[in-house]
């Protein structure tokens, strides 16, 4: 009786999961396995023959100067994450209580995050226009005679991308911080105030430690989200000028679909996976000990 019930349960379980599992198998698991195989081949699109090349792709990647450049650019790109979080924390604390028009303001800050990356990419492209764009117009207005060339120069292009990304992520980070702030019991803040803590001390010594799990979560998920992204960069600069904005994820896309070096692209994409895996493990460890709940 019990056994047949278990069997029936199992059958029902598969019935519910089945449809979704077929898709996950077709569009996630099989491609992932296939990509793992491609990493060890010299597969090029439309090439007559494909050979098994062992670790050649990985060796090539480690000796590729462009891979190093892409790595460095990726790290510069990732700097946007903590900066955006810092700003978001300040905005969230301010919006949490003591302002009017709370809901409207929250919506305004969140707006960039829901809009199409490509559309905002083009708006920023014009805003950053070096000779007559509004941003440099403003900078000249406040007395900077030689404002940066932004997206048109190799030194400033990644900074410009970072600014766009900070702006884009701010609303998301703020919403999550706000949710965390609302979980803090009112009494704790009240108690700190009665003990004579100034607002700044309350923020530093009460609020900031209490939201540390959120900070950690945002940092890790933000890094993962950022490292995967290439749409905005592809739309604005396609990795240029030079290779100054070629980040790892864009580098993979270019190798695969511009040069049709699909085996090589697969190898780099697994390097990207390795980095994401490290972040994920960190998050898992961090949840256990680094952060107090």
């Amino acid at each position, binding site marked *: 009786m019990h056994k047949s019930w278990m069997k029936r349960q199992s059958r029902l379980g598969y019935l519910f999961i089945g449809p979704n599992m077929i898709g996950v198998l077709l569009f996630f698991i099989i491609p992932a396995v296939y990509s793992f195989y491609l990493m060890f081949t010299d597969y090029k699109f439309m090439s007559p023959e494909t050979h098994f090349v062992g670790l050649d792709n990985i060796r090539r990647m480690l000796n590729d100067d462009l891979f190093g450049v892409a790595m460095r650019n990726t790290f510069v790109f990732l700097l946007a994450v903590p900066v955006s979080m810092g700003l978001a924390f300040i905005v969230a604390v301010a919006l949490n209580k003591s302002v009017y028009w709370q809901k409207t303001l929250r919506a305004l800050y969140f707006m960039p995050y829901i*809009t199409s990356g490509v*559309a905002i990419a083009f708006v920023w492209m014009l805003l950053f226009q070096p000779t007559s764009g509004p941003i440099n117009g403003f900078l000249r207005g406040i007395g900077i005679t030689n404002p940066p060339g932004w997206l048109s120069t190799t030194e400033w292009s990644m900074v410009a991308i970072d600014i766009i990304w900070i702006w884009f992520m701010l609303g998301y980070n703020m919403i999550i911080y706000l949710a965390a702030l609302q979980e803090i019991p009112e009494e704790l803040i009240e108690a700190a105030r009665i003990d004579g803590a100034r607002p700044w001390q309350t923020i530093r010594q009460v609020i900031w430690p209490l939201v540390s799990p959120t900070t950690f979560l945002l940092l890790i998920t933000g890094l993962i989200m950022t490292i995967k992204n290439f749409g905005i960069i592809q739309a604005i600069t396609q990795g240029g000028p030079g290779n100054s904005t070629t980040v790892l994820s864009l580098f993979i896309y270019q190798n695969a679909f511009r040069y049709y070096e699909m085996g090589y692209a697969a190898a780099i994409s697994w390097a990207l996976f390795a980095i994401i895996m490290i972040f994920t493990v960190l998050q898992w460890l961090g949840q256990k000990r680094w952060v107090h709940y």
Partner: protein
Amino acid sequence: MEKINAANAKPTFPHSPKVKVRMEYLTQIRKIILTLLMAGFALLMIMPFIWMISTSFKSPADVFTYPIQWIPSSLNWEHHIKVWSGANTFATYYLNSLKISLISTIGAVFLSAFAAYGFARIQFKGRETLFLIYLSMMMVPPQVLFVPKFLMFEWVGIYNTHWALILPGMFTIFGVFMLRQFFLSVPSEISEAAFIDGAGHLRIFFRLILPLAKPALATLAIIDFSWHWNDYENALVFLIDKDLYTVPLGLQNFILENNVDYNGMMAAATAGIIPMIIIFLVGQHYIIQGVAGSAVKG
């Protein structure tokens, strides 16, 4: 009881009524100052959008005049007309995006709900292992999957068709996670009572759980829809024919073909953004809830 306590506590407050009024007045002022500061910063945040819309109505000569002309000297509709007319127009891109986003979203919500119920509410062999596999798939970056999917789609013949976006779009691991979380939070007493009355899982799922989950389903639907609407990377990899282009690709195409027409570019960008802004204004509550809930509960 509490009321009495509160009343008792009041006289111990050290300030005289006069001082108290003054303090409230001060907090009021502080609140106003902070509001103005935050509003100023918020304005800075949406400045790119305001500039975009205003530029789309300017004459070409006024695009870069400085100080910035926030209100155009004359309303020029021709840039918007240009965006919406011609061979491949935003009308086509809108229809394509709408078709892809709608079918994907409906499929994704339904399929996720089904799987999430299975993971949350049914005991079966291998459930934990399967869930772990789902979990691990979230770590795989899209770049790993692009090349194999490209080759697979070529092989089955759906490369460069909308199916290349719709079919994979119907499967979202995030959706399964989110809904599973929600289903776990529904008290089991509710379904136990139905079990006793002789209802099976299918009946409980359709009659009890799905109606209860309406807000969660709406949240997932809105987030998923916006994700499909804004998806540029997949469209970039899997579509080549211009008449198949979605809004982000159409936008890119428009800008490649009109790269000196800054007003037109901004009119096109406006066209690309407006639908999401409308959806956001309507479904704000769900979007914010969904984004906050998914991250905080992890």
